[in-house]
């Protein structure tokens, strides 16, 4: 008989080759070696093990799933909406028109000598991407109950795919920026090469915060209701529709503690050829990386309980 049961007879089983503190998952997805030829178990599932490390190796092994989930999010969104890709443009464009009317024309807010419409759009572009990525990833785990309770994979892929799917919208909305730059006669300088860096920072920040919120959302559904509110407050707390320069000198350091500040200011500086405020950018970068690492650790610690709670 190829199967034997031993009631509580663990003594009969040889001691495990791995220490009890070994990570619960030593390896994930890659094609397994022939099970007969390996002495070490490929996978350990241990009640006493905690999710240790950042789990980057396993994440890499599952990169194709990240690709497919991102692709799915994009496909479904464009298939289910009548306007499809147009939504990617409508959102920042109408926000720009609205803010131009109220802040540019009526309140006559300073915009660092740049025409207000293009100034606002250059801020709203990364902001819209950030806000949508944050909202979508924050709600992503709760919306993927069937996946979480039926299949195993690193759960981080779900919020990551939600952020990645927003990148396409960003690229589409970016296309509108080009005629705006031409129309308002903005000449690009060498500083534009820094643009991808700020896009990357936006993505990482959205991932860091979104991932943490998504895990929190599994346990506390309050997050779903708090998210739109947080996003709205965050918009006004960041120099998106106004320049940092209108903030009194003594208060700027407070604004710099908001990682979005350095990113948006940097994004605009690289487009309009202004001098980079390296201190603010450095603070934003450090905060973004810190947020990403902390939230990855936090996520890893709770991810194994998602299937029981969600």
């Amino acid at each position, binding site marked *: 008989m190829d199967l034997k049961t*031993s009631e509580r007879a663990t003594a009969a089983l040889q001691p495990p080759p791995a220490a009890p503190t070994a990570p619960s998952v030593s390896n994930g997805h890659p094609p397994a070696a022939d099970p007969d030829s390996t002495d070490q178990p490929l*996978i350990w599932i241990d009640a006493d093990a905690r999710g240790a490390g950042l789990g980057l190796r396993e994440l890499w092994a599952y990169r194709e799933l990240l690709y497919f989930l991102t692709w799915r999010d994009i496909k479904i969104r464009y298939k289910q909406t009548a306007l499809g890709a147009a939504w990617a443009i409508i959102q920042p464009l109408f926000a720009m028109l609205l803010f131009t009317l109220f802040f540019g024309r009526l309140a006559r807010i300073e915009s660092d000598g740049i025409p207000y419409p293009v100034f606002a759009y250059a801020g709203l572009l990364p902001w819209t991407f950030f806000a949508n990525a944050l909202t979508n990833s924050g709600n992503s785990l709760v919306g993927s109950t069937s996946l979480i309770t039926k299949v195993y994979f690193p759960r981080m892929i779900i919020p990551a795919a939600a952020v990645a799917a927003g990148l396409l919208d960003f690229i589409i909305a970016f296309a509108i920026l080009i005629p705006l730059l031409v129309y308002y006669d903005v000449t690009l300088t060498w500083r534009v090469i820094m643009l991808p860096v700020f896009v990357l920072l936006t993505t990482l920040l959205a991932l860091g915060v979104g991932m943490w919120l998504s895990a929190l959302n599994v346990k506390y559904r309050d997050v779903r209701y708090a998210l739109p509110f947080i996003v709205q407050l965050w918009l006004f707390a960041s120099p998106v529709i106004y320049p940092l320069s209108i903030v009194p000198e003594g208060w700027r350091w407070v604004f710099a503690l908001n990682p979005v500040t350095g990113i948006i200011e940097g994004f605009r500086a690289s487009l309009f050829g202004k001098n980079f405020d390296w201190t603010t950018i450095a603070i934003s970068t450090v905060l973004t990386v810190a947020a990403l690492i902390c939230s990855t650790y936090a996520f890893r610690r709770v991810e194994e309980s998602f299937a029981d709670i969600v």
Partner: protein
Amino acid sequence: MKPIIRVENLGKLYRIGAQQGHTSLRDALAGVVGAPFKRLRSSSSGGGGRADEIWALRDVNFEVAPGARLGIIGRNGAGKSTLLKILSRITKPTTGRVALRGRVGSLLEVGTGFHSELTGRENVYLNGAILGMRRDEIARKFDEIVAFAETEQFLDTPVKRYSSGMTVRLAFAVAAHLEPEILIIDEVLAVGDIAFQKKCLGKMNDIAREGRTVLFVSHDLSAVNALCDTSLLMHDGSIVMTGATRDVSAHYLDRSNKLYSPVTWAKFSDSQNAEIELNAASVVQGGAATSAVDCRAPFEIRLEYQNRQAVRGARFFIIIRNAKGDVIFSTSDYDALTGEAAERRAGRFTSVVSVPGDLLRTGSYYGTVGADIKNERIIFVENDILHFDVFESGDDTLAERHKRPGLIAPVLAWEIQAAGAKPSSDT
């Protein structure tokens, strides 16, 4: 040969109540206040005896040799699915550990991640990736998958336009082409037509013959018998028997073993304060309370209750639903219209309804029990308090009716006559 799966002292504790499940921030704040005391309490009780804790799995030990096909049998709530979820790494065990010497592919549901807006082709890729296949692997097997599912001409049609049978075929086809060393399958053959089920069983046999290890859970004992040489019988979170599938399933079906604790409840929430208190609800077949009902024989549903006062005009109703939630039938003791039903004096009573055999399809059923007064009010409703599985006791041609479309599978009287001949009863 080293076992490909080794399970040691595996246990899974579920907490029911507010701490488990999604809470709101308010509860969490309240929880923080009470937390130190709670920790004290649970450590003194050894994490065991609390009323809001349930060991879904306890002290489970077993080993599986590479290439084995292991069936897991047991009634609902026996811990089968919890075991598979732990082995699939979906949920974490509370105690013990598992060593797996191979890549695990698990199929706990057909079509996980299928999206109705996507086309058949897109879903094959998506579902394949979700189940752990690589893109080039899916591309390589794509034609084979589609041929297996017999859905070639609908590849570029959104799945929402598929019939449910087609969706299932496509989903299973993807899963059947997984190539892990360990394949875990839970209850997925319960769907689809009989021809396709046979094809799936054949495919799984091939998988096992290639030296892969298969763990298989199904309510359909004949499928377990066909596929698995050995089986585990689980009951209340523990393994009660291991051996040849034939012996294990015989033991499972043998009612004298009392593997099924009588399906009786002591307290019900909704009826506790009503004029009528429901004390017990059970499914009875062959004189014993059970949760496994042979579809060939009649069975009874018994309701024991206490009328705290005379409740004139009260009537009990039972609504039976299948696992999908479709109402199969509903019935009421109002139909009996005896003096007792009309008067409802105070005291303890039992209402029994007999359900004929050869009526229900195999599968899981849930029963909602309630009482009301016609055109007046509802006295109480207890949702889904009854739970039983209907199985087919034989595997002869009559069993085929469970695969036909329809909510029920009655055996009806057919007569076949030659044209112009007089009906006769003795041929």
